[in-house]
């Protein structure tokens, strides 16, 4: 599992940092390093850009995994963090959340968190699960229609499908054509005839909280 992020346009970061002149930068050694959005190299690049803007970068670090509880200790070890008047976080929103929990200074995200995805080939990530709380993969040949179909349809393809491609993008596969082909190969096409009732969104009340015993 990877939390897939992309860097915000620098102008947006610049605008959010407008009122701060002393910045401490925090990157993440896990997902953001793999996506090359908040690893050591990106943090140092950011440091340079901020210095060009006339900001004082009081300190920086790359926390091994920004979203776990070690973050608290790691933040305390950053030299110069106390002199900063804001923390620029180059991690996914989970990392931003953790940093925000442990430090009483304004926290600014430098990345946009896109989705939880898998890497198909180096640098290419795609979303396979929308974490909907009610898995249908057993009946859809292991391909999630909620995630892979642009409209998240549960009862088969829309009329916008064309030669196995999606109406929103001729390069994108139609999820329901893939599901159909796979079910057919597996001799389970009867599953495509099954009616799926409207999705129960109550299984995923937001914000989602669960106590695992």
């Amino acid at each position, binding site marked *: 599992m990877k939390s897939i992020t992309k860097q915000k346009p620098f102008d947006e970061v610049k605008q959010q940092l407008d009122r701060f002149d002393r910045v401490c930068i925090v990157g993440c050694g896990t997902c953001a390093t793999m996506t090359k959005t908040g690893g050591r190299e990106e943090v140092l690049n950011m440091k340079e850009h901020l210095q060009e803007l006339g900001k004082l970068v009081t300190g920086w670090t790359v926390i091994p995994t920004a979203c776990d509880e070690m973050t608290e200790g790691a933040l305390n070890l950053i030299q110069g963090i106390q002199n900063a008047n804001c923390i620029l976080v180059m991690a996914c929103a989970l990392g931003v959340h953790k940093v925000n929990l442990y430090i009483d200074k304004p926290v600014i995200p430098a990345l946009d968190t896109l989705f939880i995805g898998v890497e198909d080939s180096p640098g290419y990530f795609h979303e396979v699960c929308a974490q909907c709380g009610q898995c249908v993969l057993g009946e859809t040949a292991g391909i999630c229609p909620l995630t892979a179909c*642009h*409209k*998240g*349809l*549960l*009862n*088969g*393809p*829309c*009329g*916008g*499908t*064309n*030669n*196995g491609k*999606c*109406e*929103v993008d001729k390069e994108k596969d139609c999820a*329901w*054509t893939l599901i*159909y082909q796979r079910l*057919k190969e597996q001799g389970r*096409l009867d599953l*495509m*005839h099954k*009616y*799926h*009732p*409207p*999705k129960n969104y109550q299984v995923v009340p937001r914000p989602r909280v669960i106590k695992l015993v």
Partner: protein
Amino acid sequence: MISKFRQVLNSGKFVVTSEIGPPKGTNIEKMLHHIDLLKDKVDALNVTDHQSSVMRFPSIGGCLAIKEQGGEPILQMTCRDRNRLALQAELLLAYTRGIRNVLCLTGDAIPVGDHKEAKGVFDLDSVQLLRAIRQMEAGKDLGGNELDGTIEFCAGAIVTPEARPIEPQLIKFEKKVEAGAEFFQTQAVYDLDNFAKFMQYARQFSVKILAGIVLLSSASMAKYMTENVPGIFVPKYLIDELASAPRGEALNKGKEIAGRMVATLKKESICDGVHIMAIRREEVVPDILAIAGL
């Protein structure tokens, strides 16, 4: 008051429906003119629901205008813009205002339209919407609560007989039939031999099929549709026929082709009727009907 359109569907008559595209804005003069022109020439008039995800005057507004002018409206409802509460509420409103027919569609995707940054809803899909209607008719809303006054609709759906691959579409078609669809208006068909094969299959279900007839206004438009619109294939001989029309005569040729197709479908009893879509040229529908001998 039951649906007049349902009575026509069950009468055995060759059914003709057409379609009104509401304006983008409050200037409804042209729409009212089209309604006036068509309401007595067809059995029912659909009103599109933000067709191609382009924000417009709403389908229900057009349907009310048709009612006011004494016509028979078919309310098009897509699942793109409303969640299950809003869809059910609109069905309640439609029913109280005398609208008795509804066409259930998934809806085009948001990115193909003119509000690309909007949130697509798709809380229900077309099959679930059909079932919702039947459940409300039985007196309960989707939350399982008792309704104080129910609805009754002649409910229909769409099918794409030329989709490739076709089998997933046919499975969905069958799910729509099971969900309670009484009639189907098809995506545009041009190859009548192919369509007749689809009808052989569809005849095993007790639903009425109205073949979609989309007016071809020029050879380039026909080519564009074949290349870009999912599930639409215009055979080369029709494109050539349009291209062979003298300058300024392509639209007349398109009307002739549409009229000829309607006549053939009726004469050979291929299907139960036609749904004529003359997108933005609604005023030529009477010509098509005249050419078809209707």
